[in-house]
Each structure stands twice: as structure tokens, then as C-alpha cells.
């Protein structure tokens, strides 16, 4: 290879691989760590062990209940945030005028305000409303944090939709609810699904505000991880990370397969 070619092609390529390595190696390293035979965070030394995976499934150790708690809260948050997001985004899309843009800024503000400031405010408010350390309190807070994500995802889907479809449907005799159910909703399914997924993930790994407003009753997975690393770094963390990694990869593969099948149907 000539020197110029090394500089123009080889060097950028090397840099790209380094970057990829920087992104992925720390993630992949959790897999051997999860299989360690020691009870502290380390690489396997005298052979591999699945005891940390077994610990995850042990109800008494608290990991499993926390995962279920987080999953339940994230699911509730995804459902509520998506429902509200669809309502707002469709309303703003159909109405036009100045107030939708104003409301959009207001709705996106949870993304702009630093979570720590929001957390302090929520502690005060929830204390007054006796919602501290309650499922309702956590779900409500997560919904507020997830709402900007669902509104953005659904709004993006709507921006590609011809506004005259509403007029067309009404001229054909459809009442507003029918227009929503039979015309608008079927056309924004991808945006709604993306919004729901984003809301679920946002709730699933939310820690800052959750730390402030929960105690003993509601222990989400991020909260349990947080607590566990304060005394000893348990290799069970690496096991959890491995499980999540596998689930994520499976989800991505499933999505790719579904998309490929849809494309094949189209042609």
C-alpha cells in the first residue's frame, strides 16, 4: 500500500475500528465477568460458574422482584405516556395555529430541566401529596419524563401524514372518533410503537429522580443496583447486564426479521 493510501484510507479505517472497540469491548466484557467463580467483580480465575445467574433467579436475593417492579412500572409508564402522547400529538397536528407549538415547548420542558432539579421539586410535591415511595408516584414521574419522547416520536410520524386525509374522511361521512381510529391511527403505528418503546426504556433505566422519591417499598432495578454497589460490587450485576444484553440483541434481530418480511411482502 502506498503511503498516501495508508493516510487516506487505512488511518480512518483504523480509527473507526478503535471507536467501535471502545464502544463495544466494555459491554462485551460483562459476559466473562458474569461467569466468574469469585464473589467479587473479576474475570473467571479457577474456572467458570453460573452461580451469579442462579442468584438472579433467587427471589430472596431481591433481584427478581426488582426486575418485576421495574418491568411493571415501565409498562404502565409506556401505556400512559403513549396514550397521552398520541392524544396531544394528534390534537396539535389537527388543530394548527399558535397554541400547539406553545404546548409542545411546555411538554418538552422535562427534557430541558436537569433531572436533579426536577427530582428535588418532586420530593417536595410528593411529600405533600403522600405519594413518596409509592408505585403511583413513580409511574407519574416516569410518565412526565417519557412524555417528550412519545410526543416527538408520534409527531415525526404525523408530519408525513397528509392533513387533508381528515377532511377526506369527514366528507365521506366519518365522525371525528372514526377519523381518529380508522384513518389517523393506522397510519402512525410505527411512531406509536417507537414512542412506547422509548417510554418503556426511559422508565426502565431511570435512576436520578427515582432515587429521591423511593425508599423501602418501591425498589426498581436501577435502585437495587445502586444500593448493591454501595457496599460490595456483586458479580450479579454483570449477570444482569448479560441478561439485558441478550434480550436487546434478540429484540434487534426480531425487528430486522420482521422488517425483512414486510419488505418482501411489498414487492
Amino acid at each position, binding site marked *: 500500500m502506498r503511503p498516501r493510501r495508508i493516510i487516506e484510507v487505512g488511518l480512518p479505517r483504523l480509527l473507526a475500528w478503535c471507536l467501535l472497540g471502545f464502544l463495544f469491548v466494555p459491554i462485551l466484557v460483562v459476559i466473562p465477568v458474569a461467569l466468574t467463580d469469585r464473589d467479587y467483580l473479576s474475570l473467571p480465575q479457577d474456572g467458570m460458574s453460573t452461580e451469579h445467574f442462579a442468584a438472579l433467579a433467587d427471589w430472596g436475593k431481591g433481584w427478581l422482584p426488582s426486575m418485576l417492579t421495574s418491568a411493571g412500572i415501565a409498562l404502565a409508564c409506556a401505556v400512559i405516556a403513549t396514550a397521552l402522547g398520541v392524544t396531544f400529538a394528534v390534537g396539535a397536528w389537527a388543530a394548527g395555529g399558535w397554541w400547539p407549538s406553545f404546548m409542545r415547548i411546555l411538554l418538552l420542558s422535562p427534557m430541558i430541566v436537569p433531572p436533579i432539579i426536577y427530582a428535588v421539586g418532586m420530593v417536595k410535591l410528593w411529600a405533600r401529596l403522600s405519594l413518596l415511595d409509592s408505585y403511583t408516584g413513580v409511574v407519574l414521574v416516569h410518565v412526565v419524563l417519557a412524555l417528550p419522547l412519545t410526543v416527538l416520536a408520534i409527531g415525526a410520524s404525523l408530519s408525513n401524514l*397528509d392533513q*387533508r*386525509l381528515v*377532511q*377526506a*374522511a*369527514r*366528507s*365521506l*361521512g*366519518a*365522525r371525528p372518533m*372514526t377519523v381518529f381510529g*380508522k*384513518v389517523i391511527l*393506522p*397510519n402512525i403505528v410505527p411512531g406509536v410503537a417507537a414512542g412506547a418503546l422509548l417510554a418503556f426504556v426511559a422508565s426502565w433505566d431511570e435512576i436520578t429522580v427515582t432515587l429521591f422519591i423511593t425508599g423501602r417499598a418501591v425498589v426498581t432495578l436501577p435502585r437495587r443496583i445502586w444500593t448493591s454497589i454501595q457496599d460490595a460490587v456483586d458479580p450479579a450485576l454483570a449477570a444482569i447486564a448479560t441478561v439485558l444484553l441478550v434480550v436487546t440483541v434478540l429484540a434487534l434481530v426480531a425487528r430486522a426479521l420482521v422488517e425483512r418480511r414486510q419488505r418482501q411482502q411489498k414487492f
Partner: protein
Amino acid sequence: MALLVIEDLAKTYDKVTALAGINLSVEAGEFVTLLGPSGSGKTTLLMSLAGFTTPSKGTIRLDGKNITHVDPEDRNFGFVFQGYALFPHLTVANNIAFSLRVRKWEKAKIAARVTEMLSLVGLDNLAERKPRELSGGQQQRVAIARALAFGPRILLLDEPLSALDRMLRETMQKELKRLHRETGVTFVYVTHDQEEAIAMSDRIAVFNHGRIVEVGPPRDLYKKPSTRFVAGFLGENNFLSGHRADDDETMVEAFGTRFGFAPLRGHRERPGDTLTVWVRPEDIRIGQATGDEIGFRATVVENSFVGAVERILLKTVDGEEMVATLRSEAAVAAAPGQVVDCRIHPSAIGVLPGEASGS
């Protein structure tokens, strides 16, 4: 009684007047075109008829009933949109069946009607396609079939052909005329294309600045316009300035000559008053005037071949420019720079009050 009666309809947005007092009656089965330049109010009127725009003033009556504030879904008017606005997630058949499902027709009846509509617009074998798999012309047919499926009282069409190329536009014009004839549905059609309006309509309402300037059958508006705007907007026209001759009430002076003309309706010109004289390009001929014909001399400025005819730009002795369209063989003599004799029959000349240059 007319099917649709529009009385004194007005619409203002903040300070902009979109419609300034529209009065129009549409008979059952008529093909009425709302023609005008963009921003003249024709689309606002159509949107008010559909119920998408709430008028500030006035009433719309259907069969004598006031429907000004009835919801669009309760009017039973079909609407064909400029960009078709087909439902992208539904097949052609389901697009057409939409209005029937909303009306809770029986399944068998819906299937029969969809088949009937598909064959009406000639798309029998495309029932299961999605709109994005169709060409522009096919999408337009689906949009029309969808709007006609439920048997609308009136079909409203908003520049439906503007997105199509010229050839397809002419085919679709004929298609629309056929559908109008076969279904007997009343059509209210918006366009800014005067050729389209002339070719299709029973009557044209010409719009300008939020008002209807003139209404009438295309032939009448073309042959006997009573305003300078319509004379200039519908077809090509030449305007010259003339004036009332001072000795006789029916004489007009123009082309360096004077000729008799019927008094203008509703106007009382005094001798010497300025008048607008118009003559269509196809009514100017080359050659020596005979009999009643008015003759004048003009210099050929430009001669361009445009297919069936030649367009010849003439300059009269008074310095006024006119366009004449001549059959090619008649135009041979008219080389640029040449001075030619021109002739016009007085019956082809129109006279309107006011200055020629103003609109």
C-alpha cells in the same frame, strides 16, 4: 327551485377578505365551474360548501334547507382533492368502501357497489392495490370513485387535474364529463385553468378579488363578456382604446374608423367618453376589407408557428399591439416587417366601458 342556493356568503380572515358576498344558484345535475386566479376566493367558497370553512356571513341552502353550519360528515357531499388524499393504508377497494362502511351498509351491498364504482372509472383489476402502487391518473380515478360511491348530492372538485401532465389532463377532462353525464350528480368544480373550464362546464362563475364577476355558459362569457376582467381572463383577447363618437349614440371610434354598436347595458357614455374595444385573435383576418368589414393597416412585428395556427403580432398605425391567429397558409404573406391589410367583421368586435389598459 335550485338544488343549491348560496346567498350573500362572506368570509374574512383577520383583515383579509376571502369572500365578499357571493350569490350563486346551482341546479340539480349541473356542471358549474368556479374559475379565477389564485387567491380569488373560489377555493374558499368550495371549502365553505364542503363545511371545512365556516363562513363569516351569509347562508348556504340545499333543497331550501339552511346547511351553513352543518358538519361536513352530515352534508353528503363528495369531495375530490387536489392531491387526491387517498387513505395510504387502505387498498383501492377499501378506499372506495370507506364511506359505505361508515354508513353501515351490508357487506354484500358494499362489495357490489365497490365493483360497480371500479368499473365506472375503469379500474376493475386494481381493487387490491395500495394507492402508492398506482399512477397519478389511476389515483385520481380512485379519488373520484371514492367520492361518488355513497351517492353524494353534490360532487365538489378542487383542481383535481392540476397535478397531471397535459395529455392525461385532456383524457381526464373527457372522463369527468362522461362521469357527470352517466351519474347525473351535480358537479361544482374549481379550477384556475380557463381552457378546462370552457371545455367542461355548463356554466362558469368567474371569480376575482373574492367576488363573482360574471356567471354564465362558457359560450356566452366568451362571446359576450360584460366586464373587462372576463373578456381578458377567458381566452386570449386584444384590447384597444376607443371612444364614443360625438354625433351618434351608437357609434364607436377605433381602428381609425367609426362603426355602429349597440348601446352598452347599464352604462350611459357621453360623447367623447373612453371605451375599451376588444377583438379575439381568431377574428382578425389578413386582406382587403369588403362589405361591412372594418379594414386597417398594421405592421407585422413577429410571426410564430404554434401548431394548428400561426400567431402574428401586429402593430397598428396608432402604435397599438394586437395578436392575430391565422391558419398557416393565410399567414404566408405576413413576414415580419411587412405592412399588411387587416380586416375584422364588426360583429366580432366587443365594446366595454372604461379604459383599455385597466382591469
